[in-house]
């Protein structure tokens, strides 16, 4: 499944970023950060198009040799970025989509927490569990 999941604030700083512990964390940070370029591009292209911003899923942001980076943006411009291993071919677009939706739901729960201050790093355990469930292999 996903090897790295990140939630990025509207202002492009990370609210949450987690990657598989076996691999170099730094590399994923760089990857996710770089993917914001494409996210920005897609968002601005979306803005230019129709005002119908229902579609939150941005699709494949950019592929690298080893990973595929997918993006998703909420209506409040909080970005979700998911890095998937390229060798993991069993993941279809639809599955990525549903993973994002799950992530979004969990994020919404975090935001609903009255003790959570929007803009702070996410430390919710429930959110963490959701991410964990996406990062372990499905089989």
């Amino acid at each position, binding site marked *: 499944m996903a090897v790295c999941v990140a939630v990025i604030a509207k202002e492009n700083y990370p609210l949450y970023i987690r990657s598989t512990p076996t691999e170099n964390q730094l590399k994923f940070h760089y990857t996710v950060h*770089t993917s914001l*370029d494409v996210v920005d*591009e897609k968002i601005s292209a979306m803005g230019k198009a129709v005002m119908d911003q229902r579609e939150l899923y941005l699709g494949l942001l950019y592929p*690298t*040799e080893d990973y595929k980076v997918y993006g998703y943006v909420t209506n409040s411009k909080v970005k979700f970025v998911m890095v998937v291993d390229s060798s993991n071919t069993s993941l279809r677009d639809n599955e990525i989509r549903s993973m994002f939706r799950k992530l979004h739901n969990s994020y919404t729960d975090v935001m609903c927490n009255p003790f959570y201050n929007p*803009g*702070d790093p996410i430390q919710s355990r429930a959110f963490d569990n959701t991410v964990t469930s996406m990062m372990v292999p499905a089989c």
Partner: protein
Amino acid sequence: MEGAGPGDTGNGDGEPVVVCTMENKPIVTWAGDQNVFYAVFPILTQQLPREPMEWRRAYGRAPKMIHLESHFVQFKEELLPKEGNKALLTFPFLHIYWTDCCDTEVYKAATKDDITKWQNALRAHSTTDWLIVVVESEAKKKNKTNILPRTSIADKIRSDFCNKQSDRCMVLVDPLKDTSRSQESWSLFLAKLRTLLLTSFTRNLGHFEDEMRTLREKRTEPGWSFCDYFMVQEELAFVFEMLQQFEDALVQYDELDALFSQYVLNFGAGDGANWLSSFCQPVRSWDGLALRKPIDMEKRDLIQRRQANLLELRSYLFSRQCTLLLFLQRPWEVANRALELLHNCVQELKLLEVSVPPGALDCWVFLSCLEVLQRIEGCCERAQIEANVCHTVGLWSYATEKLQSLGSLCGLVCEKGPCSEDLQRTVDLLAGLGAERAETANTAHSPYKKLQEALSSEEAFEKHYLELCHATIEMYNSIGRSRSAKLVGKDLADFYMKKSCPQKAEPFLQSALSMYQSEGWELPLTHTRKQLAECQRQLGQTEPYLRTCSLLAADVNLSQEERQLFCQEILKFAAKNSGSTESLVCLPLGSFAQLTSLSFEPPNAVVHVGGSLTMELTLLSLMPEPLQLDHISGHFHYNLDRNSYRKTAEWLTRHKPASGTIFFQAEGPLGARGTSPTPELSEMHEKSPSEGGLVSAGVICRNVHVLLRPPDSQSSSSLDRQTSVTVKEGANTLKCHNVTLQPGLNHLTFHTQAQESGTYTLRQLVASIGEVQLKLPHIYPIVQYDVYTQDPQLKVEPQSECLLAGIPQSVKFTVTTGHYTIKTGDTLQLSNTESMPILLGAGTTAAIYRNSQGEASERSLSIQRSEKVTSICLPPTPPYHILEFELDVVCLLPEAGHLLNGELPRRGRDQPDALSSNTTEQRVTVDCPWSIYSTIISLSFQLPLRAQHTLLSSGTRKYIQVCVENTCEFQFQLSESSLSSTRDLKFRPLHRAGSQDLQSQQCLFFIWEVTWCPDLPPSLPCHFSVSFYPVPSPNPCGHLQPFTYLFHLEHFYTLYTVRAEISPPPDAQFCKTGALCSLEVCITRLCDSLENDKEETLTDCNGYSSAQLFYQVADGGSNWAVCGRSSGVVMMPVKEGACHTLHMEVMPLFAGFLPYPDVRLFRYLPHHSHSQQLDADSWIENDSVSVEDPCELGSGRAQSRGLISPGATGASVEHKGLPMPRLQPFHPGQISNGSLGRQILVVPSTDDHVLEVNVT
């Protein structure tokens, strides 16, 4: 294409077919008369593609408009496909037989046989797509006369060969002539030809597709080979390409692509197909994609021979897709697909576990990237490419990445240069490239040449790598992907660092660093910063290096060891003792320690001059180990703001918040900086110093400068802001020496003694460790303390809400010492006022506070009193203290004072305001020891009681009533009331003796009967006094003075009695409403002329001295109507017992007990008593105007004081030039009205049904 003549039939061998699809056209054979065909051929090839034809297709595919072209070849039997041959390209789609035979004989002799032979050949191959064309020409017809018009050759042919398909025979009339008939036949022919061609396509392709599908369905069978299938489906693609249906052709390749990908995936999932093993051969050649030829026959052959490996298959497939996409004008899709393909290939090789020599794949990818880019460049314009950089930049970046890894693999990046092992590897890699392809051999910058050159030497590698890097960065920047650009820049910096060029690496690292910082990405930030530190160290940039070290030492993302290492770097530098101040390095304190809070003692941060002040700082040290500071100092900015009201001592002590501790917002987690700060709002109340001046209230935002900062400047954190405010070494510095900052929280205390008054603002915090100076250049929120000086002040204010006269009350004296020190023997000299003595209590004590509400201490106070002054001996008090004590004072009641002076009471008639406000003001002059000027203190007292008297008469008997009103809020008890007069008047109290309570705002009445001796003076002073004390707390009763009231009695004897009598009409028992009754008024003189009644004007009449009296009957309640004259003048002899009776008629207007009408008497002073003469009667007749005025005068002011001049009336009348007699009212008591208060019963008239009740 144009060169394809009809004779171009020389591919009889068929093997190998030159598959060059663009030049291919569907094959149509011709047979029959060569001359006829050659004549028509040019027009035919020109006309056929002119009009498009709609191609309806099977399987629900959308119909297409298609322009048809054909390649005409002479019919040979070998051309017809043999059974099982699936080649479509060489398949003849249509066979046409041409003849211009117009002679039946000739037809029968030769043509028919020829056609039959042709038909048999076709039938043998079960080909149904044929056409026979008969070319007719007028010229030929004219020569032959035996032509039967009805049965033409065409009809014959139709009947002979087209037994059911008569349309398989067309007639072309005069094809070379430009007649309408000819044109018509041409267009008919062309339409037929197109239709037949399409029909043939549809049928044959459909057939082919069916077979292909069948083949595909067999793919699970053991012997199935992808390569074979590939060839079959590619054939279809070729045909579509030939028909210029590139979209359809591309679909064939995409299907092949998907099928292959699926097999590879399945292989990865453990479901391997046998045929895949051929693709798993080790990769031996990595020459990259070849996109310049439309078809790479070499690779195609390899596939056909089942010898291609994965890369070769992919390369071939992509080259075909690329060709088709370029035909479709979609170069950007090529770029995107290329990147996908390259990634995919790398993955697939991994998945299939194909053995690839190290670096080979990098070579392949690098070459492929450049090949794709060059291919796109070759078919697009420059502007177009620049506009679509976003599609190609991925390839650039990928190529850069690959070149970089090749560089490091081959030892071209490191400083030492490649070793022999590296060189061997390079040679192997170059060998795998093979020879350069023919088509690029002449190109200067072919990918092949580039790679070869780059791997040849370090310099060449650097040149190529830099070129690629810069191009990539530039492209990324141009499309706004700055993050990607920075990442490539960082790679470049890495490269420079490896090449030992830190000066070139630094700007890239700096820009990347600032971006990670502004966007709050901690790990990349730390990583980049570490790289930068190394770079700066190599560059020898001491200060930036140390600054970076300090940030790294504080970085929690690093391990403790690493942090200590960086910390040691700083300490090592600090320990270096060069001694000169120039080598002093200034670093931001904020990266070492955070200022978390600061507090002052006293907590409100306000001290007087000379007072001591303590400032406690809390610093959170971020260092991994203790830090020994030589000193730490706070620099204050001094500002003297003397004029501002805010800087006065009162304002400061009162308004400054006493909480004392200021908390500083931490620089916080990196991310949180992106959010805008919350506004800090606070209330503002301000009162101008002058009393009753403006008062304003509002809300202030304290951090407007933060909120309104433009967003881009916000990103530059204060940590890195390089503002060089010079440290002002001055007197306003607080210092702490030898401080050790432990990791975590540290508390530092600074002491100082306030010097000059003013405001001190903490601007900077500076610490020093050897050669290193740590500075906090800005401190926010503002930290400041105020120092004030204060002039000594005396304030006197009542303890209670208001002061009451006559009652001892305490007054609070407050001495604010300010800068003055009260020494032993300093006294306050109070001038004594007679009306307000100061009561000396026993053992008065004073409380001494510090200004800032410290604990109080009690000191005794001695008060001495002399005749003129009361001096209060103040206890010694240090400066800036408050001395408070209370004194009891009593304000004597003003009446008593006046009486003592023997003055007339109510002298204040000219001060009616003072009376009505009922207060009295006392001024005390105080001489203070600190000033040569006297202070005047004004205290106002309220009079608690007010008295009024009334003289009451009953016949000749006289009574005095005194009304005492309580005007203040307190309750009093009154006792010992007494009334006394100087002389022969005697008073007999009629009220109750003993004490009585008097509530607030109530009145108490006292009444006395007066008896007197004869021969009294005209004015008799009377003195009323009553003791009072407040009821709830009658403590110092002894000092209370009685309340006194002084008034004068004048003319109180009764001169006349007036009696009125109303009697009903003689025939009635009672008065009736509406019936006239008689009123008899009897005026009787009770005494002789009096000595003291000199002012009475007497006239001589009938031997008696007489007084003229003016009477008036008036009914205030409108109960009576006076009939006839209601007023008049009578002469009264001044003699005891003299009586005068008047008769008048009155009519009651209401029924019931009616009060008698008023009878009023005035002295009548005829005008001749003045200088003017006037007829009395004329004035009397004029009564309606004149009588009222004296009445009013009399009633309004009679009781208050003696003589009344007609004043305004007389003046106004005289003003009109009418001199008038005057009326003078009697003093109260001089007239006794015997019928006052009498009532008479009036019954209603008999026929009155309405009972009127009138209550008065």
